[in-house]
Structures are given as C-alpha cells and as structure tokens.
C-alpha cells in the first residue's frame, strides 16, 4: 500500500482564460490531518473539488488513494468521505432514515446508531432533518461523510455556524477519527481549528501555494521573530529581534526610564497567516499588471 493518501504535483486549473490554481504541489501522508487554508476565491475549493473527483484538472498530476480522481470509479468513491461546504438536506426524512440510506451505498458501512451517537444526535435520531437547527444539520452532513468508513475524509468548512460548545464536540469527533487512522483533509477559515486538529497545513492564495508545513512552523522561522513594541515621543515603534529581552534592556538604558507601553509578542498564527496571504495579494496584483502590459 502506498504511503501517501494524496499526491498533487504541479496542479493547474483554468476557467476560460482565468487561472484558478496555478501549479500547486503537496503530499498528504496516510493517517495525517492536513489543513488547507486561504482566503475565499484563493483556489482552495477548486483544489479540493479536483481531489474529490468533482472537477477536472487542466494540468499537473493528482493521485488520491493511488487513483487519478479524473477516472476514479465507484470502488474508489467507496473509500472516500466527503462533507461539502453547504448542501441541501432531505428534510422530509429522519436522521436515522437518511443515514440508513447512505449506509446502503457502501461495502462496509459503520453502524448507523453508533455514528448517530458519535455526532451527538441520539435524541434527534427520529426527528425529521428539516426540524433540526443549522448546527445539528451540519452534524448530519458529517455523519453522512463518515458512515461509509472512509480511508480519506474531506471536510469543507465543517464548523461554520457552530457555537463554541458544538465546535469543541466536533473537534472531539475528529480526534476519534484520527485515532482510528482516518486521513483528513480539512478546509477551514478558523486558524485555531487548524492549529488544534491538523498535523500540517498548506496556505493557498491567488492560486499558488504560499506556505506548507507543520502549523507551528508555518511561514518559516523569520515569520516567528518576536516583536518588541513601545511608544517613544508619542510615536508607536516596533522592532523585530531574536533577542527581545536584550533589546528591551538596551532600550530601557537608552531612554533612562521604563519604555512607554512596552510589550514583547510573538506573531500569532493569524498574524503569520495574514502576512502570507497579503504577500500573495501583492504578487497577484503584479502578475495582473504584467498580463495587462
């Protein structure tokens, strides 16, 4: 069995003359949880839909569970679980009826009642889906995604609209799937969610890969250099340094007093992410300018 669940090499996708995905390369190991981050319209959804077999690529090579998704058959689909961004629900049937239906499509489905329990919908099992809250309907989506016992699970913004409590419970469910050996591809806007669940992440912006790696190393060491901030003569000042304490001590000595509003911070994941995405915006603008010439 190959060690990679997903291999993407030089993936490109163009719609008419517009390039949505422009040469993306990454691999996802079996059993890994991999987050795809990026602003709306960055090319994440297109990338994921190519991996899921919904869209055809314009160029490059893709292998998902060793199979080219462009020609993946039903046996291949039986090994995937897909939780789409937002989908219509069969509102007239109950949670249990809907899960039974989907279980019937797969060769080795999970037990319907166990899956209902895993997503915390025991009390709603015999309620029609239309009568559930938005968050509960999203759990039905997730339940449908895992009912087939997938080797590889795609989750596209799974917790949008969840309250904090529901999000915590969802994370517990994902950890149980991870412990089970399921490979997970998570698309999300929530960086804390990616940080808690994912082993590695890719940041995609303007159709290109901006960063790839473990969440706590994303953007490289230079993105994590601490920042010393203070006010001097009414002006906000900042300095990035690997030795913030020495710098602050020297600063204090130079001023002959405690620096005003002194703080030493490490860039948060969000700061790093925004830097990466903003750089991409500049690159994209330059590229458009060049195209226009």
């Amino acid at each position, binding site marked *: 069995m190959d060690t990679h669940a997903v291999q993407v090499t030089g993936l490109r996708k163009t*719609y008419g003359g517009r390039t949505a995905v422009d040469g993306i390369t990454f691999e996802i190991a079996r059993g890994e949880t991999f987050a795809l981050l990026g602003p709306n319209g960055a090319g994440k959804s297109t990338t994921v839909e190519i991996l*899921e*077999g*919904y*869209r*055809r690529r314009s160029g490059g090579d893709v292998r998902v569970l060793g199979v080219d998704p462009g020609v993946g058959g*039903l*046996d291949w*689909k*039986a*090994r*995937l679980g*897909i939780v*789409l961004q*937002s*989908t*219509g629900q*069969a509102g*007239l*049937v109950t949670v249990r*009826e809907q899960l039974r*239906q*989907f279980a*019937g*499509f*797969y*060769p*080795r489905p*999970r*037990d319907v009642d*166990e*899956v209902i*329990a*895993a997503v*915390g919908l025991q009390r709603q099992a015999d309620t029609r889906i239309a009568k559930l809250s938005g968050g509960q309907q999203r759990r039905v989506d997730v339940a*449908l995604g*895992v009912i*087939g*016992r*997938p*080797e590889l699970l795609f989750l596209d913004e799974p917790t949008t609209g969840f309250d904090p409590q529901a999000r915590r*419970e969802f994370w*517990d*469910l994902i950890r*149980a*799937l991870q412990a*089970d*050996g*399921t490979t997970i591809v998570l698309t999300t806007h929530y960086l804390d969610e990616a940080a808690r669940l994912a082993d590695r992440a890719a940041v995609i912006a303007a159709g290109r890969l901006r960063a790839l790696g473990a969440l706590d190393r994303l953007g490289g060491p230079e993105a994590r250099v601490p920042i010393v901030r203070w006010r001097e003569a009414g002006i906000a000042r900042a300095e990035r340094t690997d030795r913030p304490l020495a710098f602050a001590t020297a600063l204090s000595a130079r001023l002959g007093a405690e620096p005003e509003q002194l703080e030493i911070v490490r860039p948060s994941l969000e700061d790093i992410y925004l830097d990466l995405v903003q750089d991409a915006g500049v690159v994209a603008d330059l590229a458009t300018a060049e195209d226009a010439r």
Partner: protein
Amino acid sequence: MTVPTTASARGAAIPGVVRTGIHRTRFEVLQYFRAGDTVFFTFLFPVFMLALFSVAFGADGDVRFAPELPAISMAGLYLPGMLAAGLLLSGFQNLAVDIATERSDGTLKRLGGTPLSPVAYFIGKIGQVAVTSVLQAALLLAVAAFAFGVALPTEPERWLTFAWVFALGITASALLGVAVSALPRTAKSATAVIVPIALVLQFISGVYLTFSQLPDWLQDVAAFFPLKWMAQGMRAVFLPDAFAVLERGEEWNLLSVLIALATWLVVGLVAARLTFRWLRRDA
C-alpha cells in the same frame, strides 16, 4: 465520544446496482408520500379533477355526442383523460421537478460523491414512479367505479391494451421528465418551468377538453406530443367501441399509439442519457 473502529474498506465489493436501486426505491417512495404538495398536485390531482368534472358537469345526467352514440356519464367520459394525465404527472412532471430540485439544492452533488451508481439512482426514480403511478391509476379506477358508477371493461383484451399503453406511457413520460429536468436553473424555477408545459399539454391533448371537439389544427399540434396518444389509448380501453367514430380516421388507431409512444420512449431515453449530470456543469 467514540467512533466505531475501522477496518480497511478494501477488498469488500460495493453493493450491487439492483440491490441499491431497490434500497433507493424504498427511500424515494417514503420521501414522495411525505411531501404534501407532491401528494396533492401529482398524486391526487387527477382524482380530484375527475371528481370535480363529474360533479360540476354531471348534474344534467349523461351526455350524448350524437344520436347514434350511446349516452355516457361525465365520470366515464373523463376517466381515460385523467388516467393519461396521471401518467404525465407521475412521470414527467414529478421527475422533472424532483430531479431539478435535487440538482439545484446539492442533493445530486452529495450523491455524486458516494459510490451510488447513476443506474441505481435511476432505478430508484423509476421505481418510485412505478409504485406511485400504479397506486394512482388504481385509485382513479376505484373512485370512478365505486363513487361514480362507471362500468369498467371486462374483456381481457381491453386490459391488455391498458397494460401496454400504461407501461409505454409511464416509461416515456418518466424518461422525458429526466431529460427536461436539465432545463430549470434553480429549484424555485423548477415548478414554474415544468408545470405550464404539463398544463398546456393536458388542455390540447384531450384531458380537460373533449379531444374530438378541438379544431383540427390543434389536434395536429397535439399529435406531435405523447400525451395525446396516451389519452387516445386510454379512450380505446374505457369508452364504448362506437365512440371510435369521434377519433381522427374514425378508428382507435392503436398501431399509431404504439408507434408514437415507442418513439417518444426512445427520444426520452437518448435525451435523458445525454443531459443527465450529477452536477449542473463540470467546468
């Protein structure tokens, strides 16, 4: 929170198409009868119209089209048309709206991401149409016979004609519904696009208006579409033989009914095969 332990799904074959198709049929029928609007506008509508016409126009007793023809009750006159309308509603209108809605609300996309084969999906749809249209026809016949005293035919050859007109009609109607489901762009527009097509066809094909009383040119237009032939086949089954003189050429012309419905069945099959996609477009 626990998740049942996994063993690799590899090695196990996905369930067969027929088994999954029957599984889907059960689900489709369940969903059908829980949708109040479908039950009324598709399933009960012809029964409701039969009752309405019989009561509204039947007050003056039986009608006589010509001195040489026997008198006939309103319910007896409308029964063949309503059976044909049932075929159009249960097949064409039902599936066209149903599939267009499923495509637009993402149901098809979700199913397209599972190992459900499109063939099993269609077995489910056809199964739903088969179950509901047979129940609908049985209900129509029962209401006509028991509520309005329509004498149903006793000759086996008439019921044989009924069987093949019904089978060809419902199959062609269902396949055309699948093909037309590609037209509406949204779930909201599905009913607005499909229902008027069905309604106009019912008016020109001898469902609500007596076909022989329509102008010749309109009869010729109607002859281009399948509903006219379903209604003609049903009239051959349920009206007295003497009524054949009211038809074009003064005969039931079942051979033409057979050819027309078989042609539409093939057209529907090809069109459905060409237009069906899990997604609206695969860019």
